[in-house]
């Protein structure tokens, strides 16, 4: 019962400020928290990055393996995205099998990368129908202070941008790794922007307290050429069609800013 009471008071405080165009942490409604990106921090991984979005902290490691292609895409590499809510990241997280929140996170990050066709999967075929490169993107949440989707998308893209893939030779149908490396072929840099709707007003990059009082969450990802490539609504509230279009227009602008930060990192 306590938490319900506290969140009602908190909700009022947060919602009143937002109605005046202000936020509890001093940001404007369309401002992101400070973003820090470090790339190539895990030597054992083929690609890696750590993103700090305010106090939210996410690490992504990319591992590359050789595996079988999907039967309906025999000439394409395979992308697999997974997200782990590590128990050290929040008092709410528990060890154990992935819950629906972490599966949703992984699938939304995956959707942005996949639908923008960011990775040139057709260049990752080794022997058609038999052997292809499998790209594992593992999202590791280290500190949860809200907006895991955007932090994880940024970290995944930063990690993919510094991913190196080994060269190989085919000998008697077997793949032999060679020591030299080349960059993972990428053609796009999808970026997501997440909103919280609080009493019907949209704010960008919600932090944890705002997520706790929000009615609905909306994530929109854009490809490099300004097309929408993924959308996910979350939370138990509703959005009006007008709000959604407004969000898409704001998100388009924001993704350009964020893309510059990732590319420069």
């Amino acid at each position, binding site marked *: *019962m306590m938490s*319900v009471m506290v969140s009602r008071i908190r909700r009022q405080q947060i919602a009143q400020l937002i109605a005046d165009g202000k936020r509890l942490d001093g940001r404007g409604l369309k401002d992101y928290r400070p973003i820090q990106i470090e790339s190539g921090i895990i030597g054992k991984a083929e690609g890696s990055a750590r993103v700090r979005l305010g106090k939210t902290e996410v690490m992504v490691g990319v591992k590359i393996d050789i595996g079988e292609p999907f039967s309906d895409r025999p*000439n394409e590499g395979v992308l697999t995205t997974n997200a782990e809510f590590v128990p050290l990241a929040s008092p709410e997280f528990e060890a154990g099998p992935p819950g*629906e*929140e972490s*599966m*949703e996170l*992984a*699938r939304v990050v995956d*959707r942005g990368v*996949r*639908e*923008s066709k960011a990775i040139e999967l057709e260049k990752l075929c080794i022997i058609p129908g038999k052997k292809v490169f499998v790209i594992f993107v593992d999202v590791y949440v280290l500190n949860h202070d809200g907006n895991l989707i955007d932090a994880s998308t940024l970290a995944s893209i930063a990690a993919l941008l510094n991913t190196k893939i080994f060269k190989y030779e085919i000998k008697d149908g077997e793949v032999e790794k060679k020591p030299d490396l080349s960059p993972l072929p990428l053609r796009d840099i999808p970026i997501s922007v997440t909103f919280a709707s609080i009493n019907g007003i949209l704010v960008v990059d919600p932090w944890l307290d705002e997520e706790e009082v929000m009615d609905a969450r*909306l994530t929109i990802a854009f*490809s490099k050429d*300004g*097309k*929408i*490539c*993924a*959308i*996910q*609504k*979350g*939370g*138990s*509230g*509703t*959005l*009006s*069609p007008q709000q*959604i*279009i407004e969000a*898409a*227009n704001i998100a*388009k602008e924001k993704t350009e800013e964020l893309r510059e930060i990732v590319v420069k990192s």
Partner: protein
Amino acid sequence: MTEKIVLVNEDGIRTDGRKLSELRPIKLEVGILSNADGSAYIEQGKNKILAAVYGPREVHPRHMALPDRALLRCRYHMAPFSVEERKSPAPSRREVELSKVIREAFEPAIFLEKFPRTSIDLFIEVLQADGGTRCAGVTVASLALANAGIPMRDLIVACAAGKAGGHLVLDLNDIEDKEGEADIPIAYMPSFNAISLLQMDGLLTIEEFQQAINLALEGCKQIYALQKEALKAKYQAIKETAEVTEEE
């Protein structure tokens, strides 16, 4: 690689003979399972989906009970035989995600606060899948909830729009979903003009996206009328039986 499939021909006709903004034929039935508190069945094109509701009932495990409202649980599940290649009956990551977004689509519609410390369990079983099962699942689940007598602010209705073969299309079928350019499932409460489920995959400009949303909402409104008709048909039949019994 397989040949490129023509999703829309030069006359603007789709693979299943539909026009661009035409829904698939929809059949709805209410109250078809005797054990469930509410149930319904939908056929939308080749989709065949059952929904059942149990509750409000005691929550198990009990620690999950909420002090101020009912706990809504939802399971979207596909039968192993519902698709071309047998699907493992264990819930896939996709099914877990869809169960979550469908639950979130219904939470704003149900008066959960009327039933504290109880659970309302919603089960959606896809018996045959042909694209757009989450939307058809939401449409039919809404009827099952109504059939269970659970008070709602509005019926939730869902429909997808997207882009296939270079055209914006309504209610995508399986091939259009897989080979098309984009798919946007939407769940909607028509009386409030409120969207409670929204997803998209594929690539669309903002203008196309805006048009697609409008198209999906038009589809939703048509299905909404069918939902109400199905409920009326059910209760009209009950009323008539009751009147006959009274006369006797």
